[in-house]
């Protein structure tokens, strides 16, 4: 199969969806003429023009709220937050308007919008630019949350997110944009991945590592070392979508291994892994042979200092230590 980058995979998804549905358009800061701050939308403005790829001023509350309003009339805006960190200035529009207009209207209004952009630490841009708000978005019933780890998943999930009739918060990662992976050729047909289906990215019977986003790659790295150096074989389950959540896949791997380490770039307090841990103790308590363990980002604002920031995020070393502590 051909390989392309995570960035190209997203770009392809936009290109295909813009052509498929006249109501789909991209909007965000620098997405059009500048080709995107991270070049994710490269070439799309040249190809599709001003109407379908719209440069917005720096006005997240304004343009995201506007997109929510436009989506109520049936458009399908795909909004880029240059960094997901900037959700804070658009939060009212996201939480109260995108998240709740359907409910408060008794189901009369839909909001088929996608809000996307990178949500990650690890690039030495300091605390204001390193938020990972998937846990925060997922606390709003009405919003959906997706965090792909690979090029393939990025494309398949983005196309599904755009077609979904509910608001989807799509979290990418600047450290993944350049990574290559196998992605089906468009010539082989329309390729989508449903939301709410996790993916077992590695099989092994001893311990379950459950992760999402770039933490999946950390978990995979740890799994290889554990296998080579300790003869411990790990399942690595990639959640892919946080809400809806593939509960069955989680319970299945826990039943198989009886030992779980959750790897999560969120901070520990009410991070996604806290929810998963609660779910496991509630539904799979009898399957467990050890307490559920977590490896999260260290509980402080994101530090700038490059070598220390590396340590603040989940590392393979910390995952390995946790696994060894419960085996």
């Amino acid at each position, binding site marked *: 199969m051909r390989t392309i980058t995570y960035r190209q995979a997203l770009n392809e998804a936009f290109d295909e969806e813009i052509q498929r549905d006249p109501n789909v358009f991209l909007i965000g800061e620098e997405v059009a003429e500048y080709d995107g701050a991270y070049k994710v939308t490269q070439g799309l403005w040249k190809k599709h023009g001003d109407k379908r790829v719209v440069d917005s001023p720096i006005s997240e509350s304004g343009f995201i709220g506007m997109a929510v309003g436009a989506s109520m*009339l049936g458009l399908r805006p795909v909004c880029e937050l240059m960094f997901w960190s900037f959700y804070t200035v658009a939060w009212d529009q996201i939480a109260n308007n995108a998240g709740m207009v359907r409910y408060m209207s008794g189901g009369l209004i839909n909001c088929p919008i996608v809000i996307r952009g990178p949500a990650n630490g690890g690039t030495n841009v300091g605390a204001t630019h390193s938020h990972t708000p998937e846990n925060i978005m997922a606390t709003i019933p009405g919003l959906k949350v997706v965090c792909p780890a690979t090029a393939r998943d990025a494309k398949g999930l983005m196309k599904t997110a755009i077609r979904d*009739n509910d608001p989807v918060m799509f979290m990418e990662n600047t450290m993944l944009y350049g990574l290559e992976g196998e992605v089906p050729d468009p010539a082989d047909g329309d390729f989508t991945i449903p939301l*709410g289906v996790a993916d077992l990215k590695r099989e092994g019977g001893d311990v379950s590592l459950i992760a999402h986003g770039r933490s999946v790659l950390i978990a995979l790295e740890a799994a290889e070392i554990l296998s080579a150096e300790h003869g411990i074989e790990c399942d690595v389950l990639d959640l892919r979508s946080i809400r809806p959540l593939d509960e069955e896949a989680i319970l299945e791997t826990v039943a198989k291994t009886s030992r779980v380490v959750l790897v999560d770039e969120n901070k520990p307090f009410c991070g996604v892994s806290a929810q998963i841990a609660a779910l496991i103790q509630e539904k799979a308590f009898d399957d467990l042979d050890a307490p559920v363990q977590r490896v999260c980002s260290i509980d402080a604002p994101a530090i700038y200092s490059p070598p220390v920031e590396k340590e603040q995020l989940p590392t393979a070393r910390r995952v390995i230590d946790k696994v060894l502590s419960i085996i």
Partner: protein
Amino acid sequence: MPVLAESTTDFSKTEINAALTAEQKRHLLRDMIRIREFETGAFEQYQKKKMGGFLHLYIGQEAVAVGSVSLMGDNDHVITAYRDHGHALAVGMGMDECMAELFGKRTGCSKGKGGSMHFFAPDKNYWGGHGIVGGQTPLGLGLAFGLKYKGLKGCSMCFLGDGAVNQGAYHESLNLAGLWDLPVIYVIENNGYSMGTSQKRSSAFNTCLAERAAGYGIIWDVVRNGSDLYEVREVVGRAVERAHAESRPTVLEISTYRYEGHSVADAKHNKQTLQEGYRTKDEIEHYRKNFDPIGNFSEKLIQEGVTTEEEIKEIRKAAVAETRASVTFADQSAFPTAEDLLTDVYSEVDHNTLAGRTGRHFFND
């Protein structure tokens, strides 16, 4: 501070108003009376504890919603804040579904899920009903964006209060509206107060609040006497025309006045002196007497020979009866059930699509 003032112009003679038939004029009067009676009835029911939460009454401001909405064509849309009953009835929502919503009943316009501040009727181009001050202003812009994107000749009328003009979301919306030539009309209903704060204590401005639009290159205008339905129609009509013909935004400021408290629980709105509250009984009386939109329009229509005292009495009687019937309807309707909590959250789940059936969407036991 801009306050209501009698206009020297007779707006009944302008083209847009001269075109009204006698029947249409009676209809406009009837619409205002229906809003007044509906809210008077709702207030009574609130005092009988038939509903919870807030109840922000529109009484005194009826000419603004009715006048503006009367100019709407098929592709014109309305969105407002939480003081939303007047706009709802003006666009044609029924009293039954509105009263039932206040009562928190399943037969309410939002199935009892929205409440007083969150009425919606997308089939009537009415997009709510929004509880966060200023939060609706980008949505109103989005309706205009949607119209332009689809190539439809229409406009979005987005109402907001004199307090809402200080929210960032509104200013961001003005910038985008001006920048992208979007057919949105921001209608500032300046009733002089945001809750207990007078305009003087909340806003920095030169001559009026609408004038701020000039900084964004947006044309603005004012309605000095917002209790004159003819003046409202004249000024809003020009903005609608601009939106339709040139796809340009407008900011309007309409001076108006609310007679009741901010919400019905507002202990400081009608005191003897300004030491005791933020406005006095005398002030309210002044506006009731001189600037009542219904009294004002009734008088005009009688003078024009379009209607009579007797006919107006009949209209009022019918509105009272309609309100009573809506109270009975609301009373007799069922509350939603605990199961209803989990519908209308996700469209895909409600429609039981493959997406809605895939993965866990709710995290209850």
